[in-house]
């Protein structure tokens, strides 16, 4: 039976800290951090403990990382920065990316595989199985044997574009065609634990003890991944009110070890799927499984992320709607790696356009996420002809990709745009216009902006 804690990696520049069930992926430059984490991770520390240590120097010190706790068919994942995780679970295929968020954390059950896509990892070679240790990786796949089986069974066409399938196909090809090569020797002189060369195969017939689906939004901790949680008085803070004991009328919920789940889940064969014999080249790593004795149980209260017991405010699910931003306002701007234009203002300042630039007499930025904080440029306007937030210039998207686009934000007196070789035009409020280098934008009150190459 597949277990997602079985991992395979190709070689590359990222650092993988591989514990019994926990995995931390860090960019290659984070050698010291990876080495420091290794001891913690190898001791089988819990998700939170490892996260705490990762963030010990503050959030800004670690812009990119991936943290995965995977065992059985459950996985808890946290992605920060530019890496991505492709997850195949009972919910289908999911891509976990952080985007503009601080990070994205998800919990999955019925997991078939996870594939980490690491930017600038210099990936080389075919994924080969790895055990606990610290090593350089270019990609990492969890539950590779099952992926291989899936890929063998599936028609290649419907998954060809999927990176999960791609890596999985690599894995399958590697396992089918060539003897599995050992991972390249760890180039670091760090304390390295080599992957165990011949780990004992896990008994294949053992039923998976973690069949219980987790709610993505379940705020309690997953006991199968973390072991029985203990109160931590230090972190809870001594100055805080002691929580009351549960009232007897509360529905029993998480934390109560119970009956369902121990029987395990036997994967249901997909009708029509050819039986693929287990691939012998991927011996599962045998490690103590922290959560074996504590299968999760517990019907969580159903509504949203849990009903409010004694108050009015409660947390629910967002309304399904297209992510269209705020009506009447431009889409949340993205920050580009390189500026697409430079703005030279008549009052003497210069600003590069690598994100939204809001220009006005007293500009206000409304509803932005931490990752896309707009640049605010205050221009002098003694006669107040320039509106407080008059004009937005930002990197264009779609057909405007690679250029800057200007949008009048409903200014009182309008915006005049003079582009080389084109007649002057008044910007229509809310309509973005692509800017050509050499363009001059007139906001009134003698304020002009010259658009040049960055």
């Amino acid at each position, binding site marked *: 039976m597949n277990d997602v804690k079985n991992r395979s990696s190709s070689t590359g520049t990222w650092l993988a800290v591989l514990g019994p069930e926990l995995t931390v992926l860090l960019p290659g430059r984070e050698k010291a951090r990876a080495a420091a984490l290794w001891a913690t991770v190898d001791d089988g520390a819990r998700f939170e403990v490892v996260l705490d240590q990762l963030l010990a120097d503050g*959030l800004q010190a670690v812009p990119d990382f991936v943290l995965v706790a995977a065992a059985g068919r459950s996985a808890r994942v946290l992605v920060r920065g530019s890496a991505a995780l492709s997850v195949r679970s009972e919910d289908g295929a999911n891509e976990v990316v952080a985007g503009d968020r601080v990070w994205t954390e998800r919990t999955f059950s019925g997991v078939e595989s996870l594939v980490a896509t690491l930017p600038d990892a210099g990936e080389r070679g075919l994924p080969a199985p790895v055990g606990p240790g610290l090593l350089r990786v270019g990609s990492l796949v969890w539950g590779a044997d099952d992926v291989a089986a899936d890929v063998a069974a599936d028609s290649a066409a419907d998954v060809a574009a999927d990176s999960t399938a791609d890596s999985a196909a690599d894995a399958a090809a590697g396992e089918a065609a060539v003897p599995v090569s050992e991972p390249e020797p760890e180039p670091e002189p760090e304390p390295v634990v080599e992957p165990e060369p011949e780990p004992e195969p896990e008994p294949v017939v053992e039923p998976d003890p973690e069949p219980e689906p987790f709610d993505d939004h379940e705020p309690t901790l997953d006991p199968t991944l*973390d072991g029985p949680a203990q109160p931590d008085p230090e972190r809870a803070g001594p100055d805080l009110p002691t*929580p009351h004991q549960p009232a007897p009328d509360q529905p029993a919920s998480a934390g109560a070890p119970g009956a369902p789940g121990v029987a395990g889940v036997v994967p249901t064969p997909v009708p029509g799927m050819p039986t693929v014999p287990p691939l012998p080249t991927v011996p599962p790593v045998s490690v103590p499984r922290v959560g074996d004795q504590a299968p999760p149980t517990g019907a969580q209260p159903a509504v*949203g992320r849990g009903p409010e017991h004694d108050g*009015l*405010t409660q947390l629910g699910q967002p309304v399904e709607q297209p992510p269209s931003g705020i009506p009447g306002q431009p889409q949340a701007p993205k920050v580009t790696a390189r500026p697409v234009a430079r703005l030279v203002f008549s009052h003497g300042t210069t600003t590069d356009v690598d994100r939204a630039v809001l220009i006005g007499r*007293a500009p206000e*930025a409304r509803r932005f996420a931490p990752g896309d904080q707009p640049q605010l440029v205050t221009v002098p306007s003694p006669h107040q002809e320039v509106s407080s937030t008059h004009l937005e210039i930002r990197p264009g998207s779609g057909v405007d990709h690679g250029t800057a686009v200007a949008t009048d934000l409903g200014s009182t007196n309008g915006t005049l745009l003079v582009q080389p070789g084109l007649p002057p035009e008044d910007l229509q409020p809310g309509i973005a216009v692509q800017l050509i280098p050499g363009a001059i934008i007139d906001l009134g009150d003698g304020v002009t902006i010259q658009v040049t190459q960055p």
Partner: protein
Amino acid sequence: MAAVDLHHGAATDVGHVREANEDAFLVAPDVFAVADGMGGHAGGEVASAYAVQELGRLTGRRLGSRAGVEAVLESLVRCQVRLRAYAEGQAGSGGPAPHSGTTAAVAMLVHDEDPRWLLANVGDSRIYRLTDAGLDQVSTDHSVVQELLDAGRITAEEAAEHPERHVITRALSAAEAPEPDFFSLPLAAAERLLLCTDGVSGMIDDATIEALLTRHEDPRDAAEQLVAAALAAGGRDNATAVVVDVVGLAKEHAYDAQQQKLSLETKLGALP
């Protein structure tokens, strides 16, 4: 630019219905916040207390806008980490999992070329500003009703009575990374700010809020009167209000004064 003075007032009340006040507020110039905790068995009180404790650490750091955004975010992440530890402790003690969480509405003075307000919210606690043009809700609620409003699927009148009006779509909780929205305002555009929980904004309408903010010049009176009005309107939830005034700004803000003078002289015919 001379330092501005921030005058403030705050008030909170458990209300007429609830047994515990799960709201918390922070007045630590130059950082202000309200938080509306949720989750049974003291979980809400813990969550809102964490939020204001962590945000309170931002006091006196004199950050720029960009560092300010990161700092607020870090505070919220620290709050999340503590909530996680708390949830863990609860689960370990065998009790029911506390679905603890809290909203947060934050105002912090940041210092770029000029001081500005850096505002942030998670959930349905609100940030309003009062200007010469009247009351303006700056923050956008992270609530089901607000999303339905944005999608044009319900009207404002329907929103006030919507059965899901207390359901929020983002919060600080153990489960998810905080996703605050940020706002950046020049001080002159927000000489009076109101941060309040939905126990205020859900009980009295914007016109009443505007009237009270306009009538009571002292921010302490304004905050107390807002909470009193929410109680008088039913007090169905914990009600908390923080009012912050920026004082001493007009003298420094040359062009507004100069503009007024210019326009007056123009009107009098002294200038062409």
